[in-house]
């Protein structure tokens, strides 16, 4: 019989099958699914985040841990049934119109998911209207935009303006990133934050929602 602490350890090792088995065991033994998530799976992935930041764990290891955690959360969710799991926040995220770079955006998404955020992924080449529509539909707390090209950076400003026009700007925090993006640019276009990498992006979102 594994404990919640052991479950967290299994998430860190990134062994999907073992995390599933241990989660099942705990649930079958009558453990509260919310506790399994919040005191087993999440602390595990949090530790992974810390170790990644310290340079002790690498991207593929983090990916496996994230998948293991998700598999565990799925099982726990089934047990709870319809009720929504409280998340750290909802984030709408996409690479803006004209931009097909998505590796960075996907990494940010993965790190946010691992930190308990729920994500609506708009993919690449996402036009302004798609962001506006997604904000209306999903009511996120944060809108994240990725641009790797100088030519697509202005689209981020267009999205902010469009949100403003629709009266949605005050309802969300806007964060931006990508290779040519800078803190100064974020300030210039009136975004709420910028992060140079995925780890910092998570801290930024947490900080903005506090």
């Amino acid at each position, binding site marked *: 019989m594994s404990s919640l602490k052991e479950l967290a350890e299994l998430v860190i090792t990134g062994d999907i099958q073992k995390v599933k088995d241990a989660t099942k065991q705990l649930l079958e033994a009558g453990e509260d699914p919310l506790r399994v998530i919040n005191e087993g799976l999440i602390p595990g992935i949090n530790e992974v985040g810390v170790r990644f930041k310290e340079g002790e764990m*690498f991207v*593929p290891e983090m990916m496996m841990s994230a998948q293991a955690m998700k598999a565990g959360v799925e099982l726990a969710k089934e047990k709870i049934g319809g009720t929504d799991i409280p998340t750290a926040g909802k984030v709408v995220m996409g690479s803006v119109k004209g931009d097909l770079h998505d*590796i960075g955006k996907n990494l940010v998404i993965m790190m946010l998911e691992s930190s308990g955020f729920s994500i609506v992924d708009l993919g690449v080449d996402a036009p302004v209207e798609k962001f506006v529509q997604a904000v209306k539909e999903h009511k996120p707390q944060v809108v994240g935009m990725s641009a790797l090209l*100088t030519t*697509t950076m202005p689209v981020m400003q267009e999205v902010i303006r469009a949100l403003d026009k629709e009266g949605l700007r005050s309802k969300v925090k806007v964060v931006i990133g990508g290779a*040519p993006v800078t803190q100064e640019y974020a300030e210039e276009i009136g975004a709420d934050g910028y992060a140079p990498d*995925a780890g910092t992006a998570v801290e930024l979102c947490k900080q903005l929602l506090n």
Partner: protein
Amino acid sequence: MDKFRSNYDEQVTPRLTWITDAQLEQIHYASLEVLERTGILVQNQEALKLLKEAGCRVRENRVFIPAWLVEECLRLAPKRICVADRLGRRIMPLEKNRVYYGTGSDLPFTVDIDTGERRVSRKEDVSRAARVMDYLPNYDFIMSYAIASDTNPCVSDLHQFEAMTTGSSKPVIFTAHNAANTEALIEMAAACVGGEDNLRSNPYIILYSEPISPLVHTNDGVGKMFKCFEYDIPVVYTPGVLAGATTPVTKAGCITLMNAEGLAGVVMAQLKKKGAPIIIGGGATPMDMKTTATLYGAPETSMNYAIMTQIAQFYGLPNFTEAGCVNAPLPDVQAGVEAAMTIMLTQLEGCNLVHDVGYLEGGKTGYLPFLAICDDIIDMARYTGAGTRITPEHLAVDCIHEVGPGGNYMGHEHTFKHFREEIWAPRFFIRYLWEQWEARGKQTPVDLALAKVREILAGHQAAALPEGAAEEMQAIIRRREAECRS
């Protein structure tokens, strides 16, 4: 022997062969299997239609390319592409084992030579880089280096081209936003050589376009390429990957995938126009699993290029790789090591177009003095790659006899005659004894390179454009700008 040639037997030069023919075939077969079994995604309607009509299995926009069609198109693709400069001189024939160097395009940031600060790149940076490379002897072609962020994003590619071709008469490899801008840019280039006909017969521009790994061929990427073929303009159609993120992490898997993408490009090109001048290869960089940086300066990158160059030579096609692009943020010890290792290897491999020379911070930052330093590194690599002369005169038996036991060679005519060729002389690397160095103000190679860059910018002028060309280019940019707005 000229400075561009390597792996040629007039004078036996050092030869770098990475894998065996049997191993090359394995990669070739593996790529064919990918094309036939996994297939590619084609978002360009014209290409989709051509592929279907040529006999590919097509399911919506997923295309499965049979091996026979690949072989057929490999036969049609030109084995030699002769590239000219803006003055119409056919100076850059892309033939097996001729190695040419140039920088890369579109760096978002520049370390300002006046302030020493890192800032957003501007059109002036493109212009400066072009003039510096026009002057430096080991840059054979120009790319934009910086990005013209201070111009209208709709036409920033055209502004970059204007700055490049005005700042230098060397061949230009350009990036463009879409097919319409590609056409406008071709028009601009034609204006610089006295018309489209001259541009067709002596092309001095090459498009750089990319598929998106894994296995996606976009509307713009293919559209730009096709537009160029309509004007007989050569095209580099090569993926830029992050191994471990957009390709398998194993080197052989990364190369197999990239090669499949390149072969798909060759097929589309030849279906568009028989004999279409296409150049294969690509940027085979791994992703750093700690920082997510693009590892331009890593050993894996060079190792991949060794094989990719061999594959291109196996197909007999011109190829495109990179070297001299580093992860170091500034030109320091690390930058020197990364640049020298990679440049030396490409020189020995015999790759045709080696780009991205002088990139810092994993392809995000530029600094002109580093371009100058790399010119010295290329010089050293070319010198080394040219090999050792073994002739009776060079064996120097008579000279040894004349000096005899116990003498010295400093005053001998043989030394006087040969020392300049037999001992390479750098321009920026320091070789002073300590006291000599101190007396000259303890300058570093970067200080010397910076001084040289300032001198070039103050004094060097590229060959002039023909009358009216500057105005015509500006008119074309204005026209495209207006079209963008409407």
